[in-house]
């Protein structure tokens, strides 16, 4: 009994250490973004906002932020639409080549980004879409559609199939049943998928770096600064990026969780 307690606390301590390892770079990046030293270490220098002022005054950063926002918003819209249509198809229909069909949408995350980047670069050059914002949007949609599909498919599997059938029986055609029954039921998953795909797109740098040309996104700017030298500006931009992505992830999670709770209360 006593040795079990020791083991228990050892395991808890271990888990805590692992989480520290995982969050250390995020936390340190935020601390360093307010730190005056050019090369931050312990003990910390004095508090400063100069790195934020530098990026605030940098037109390149503003331009990149604008591109990033346009890209991630468009990507989230396209990927969520594709994910929804595919999830619904998988939920409702059976057909011969279904495994192949599912592989088509689920495979992209298993291909290394650097390979996708090279393939997209060459392909977009070939079809005349090189260096355009639209090409980043297309590439990121391919990459993120699987996430949207997975989230929405999970939600559909919680649905009572007779809901849609009831709508048909009451005279709704398939489009109307889809719009008035399926979509509202999937709304939390749709919002969640929108946020998560936007977050992935907002952070993606390998493909964006290869194909963006002059339309740099925020991660591409970061990559270029990092390649140059040690510059704490990266921490300031990074903190802004962390804040954006973490906000999106938290919204996604909260939307999914609160809906679950509400339904439980409703049924119980």
């Amino acid at each position, binding site marked *: 009994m006593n040795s079990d307690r020791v083991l228990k606390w050892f395991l808890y301590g271990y888990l805590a250490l692992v989480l520290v390892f995982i969050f250390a770079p995020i936390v340190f990046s935020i601390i360093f973004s307010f730190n005056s030293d050019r090369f931050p270490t312990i003990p910390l220098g004095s508090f400063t906002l100069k790195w934020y002022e530098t990026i605030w005054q940098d037109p390149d950063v503003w331009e990149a932020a604008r591109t990033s926002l346009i890209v991630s918003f468009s990507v989230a819209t396209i990927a969520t639409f594709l994910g929804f249509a595919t999830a619904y198809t998988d939920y409702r*229909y059976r057909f011969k080549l279904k495994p192949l069909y599912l592989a088509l949408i689920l495979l992209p995350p298993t291909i290394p980004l650097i390979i996708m980047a090279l393939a997209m670069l060459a*392909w977009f050059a070939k079809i005349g879409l090189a260096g355009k914002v639209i090409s980043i949007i297309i590439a990121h949609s391919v990459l993120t559609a699987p996430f949207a599909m997975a989230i929405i498919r999970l939600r559909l599997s919680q649905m009572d199939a007779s809901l849609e059938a009831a709508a048909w029986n009451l005279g709704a*055609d398939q489009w109307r049943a889809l719009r008035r029954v399926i979509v509202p039921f999937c709304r939390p998953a749709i919002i969640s998928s929108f946020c998560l795909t936007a977050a992935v797109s907002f952070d993606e740098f390998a493909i964006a770096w290869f194909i963006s040309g002059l339309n740099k996104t925020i991660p591409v700017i970061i990559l270029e600064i990092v390649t140059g030298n040690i510059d704490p500006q990266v921490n300031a931009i990074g903190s802004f990026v962390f804040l954006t992505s973490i906000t999106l992830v938290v919204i996604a999670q909260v939307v999914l969780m609160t809906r679950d709770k509400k339904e439980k209360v409703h049924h119980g």
Partner: protein
Amino acid sequence: MSVSNHPTKTPSSDPKPVRPRQRSDLFQQALRLPIVIWQGLFFIAPLFFLVAMSFFIVRNYRMTEAFEMKNWLKMMSRDYFWDSYGLTIGLATLATLVVMTVAFPAAYTLAFRVSDTTRRWAIFLLIIPFFTSYLVRIFSWYVILAESGVINAMLGYIGLGPYVMLNTKFGTIIGYMTLTLPLVIILQTFSLANIDRRLVEAAHNLGCRPWRTIIRVVLPLAKTGFIIAAVFCFILSFGDFVSPYYLGGSKPPTLPILIVDTVKSGQQWPRAAVVAVVMMVTLFIVAFGGIAAAYRRRTA
């Protein structure tokens, strides 16, 4: 070709729902085809084009479509290519072993030793890094691991160091861990949590010691999920250019760095395509080997 059918059918005694028939084909295709067209044009086509490109030639700084073995022969005959290949496989294998080992006690704790609420929170925390900038996290490690960085400063207080951690394999592995550890813990936790607890308790009741239980009962039961986690860890590490470049020092370069250098330094896309195709073939072999091992029936 297709039959409309709900996966969760109502019992046959119930009146069958009247399924609207009109324009049902249009409806079905409108939902099914977008992804086929989209992924066909922008996922499958680029990958095929990549393979084709590895046979193109570059003349006068311009890429010309052709079918020649030149790039393949050139790359295959270079020692630096094989050095990079060996290094990349070695590092990815090492990362997989380290990450799987480091993740296990954490996943074990989450699966067996904490409440459902704690587990849910822990999983939520582990998902967050997946959606935060990997690049910024690696830059952060760069500063933390530097010779005058945070870790060496702390070690200095107790009279140790400074240790060189940047531009070493250690640095690269730390980077790979940043990328893969959260995902591997999540996958391991799920496969452990799905184990039938009664089997573990039976082993315990029959007097099997804890370590032996883990090796003879828990791990075999969680095998499929663990192999999938290992395969993902390998794929992610194998394809990452950021950690080996910024933390590992890139001497010699790994295959992904070779692709970046080749593309960014000029027009030699076909040679980069050769590297990419070799990487894909390697990953297919690893993935299929892993899947085959995961679903093989246990003998003995």
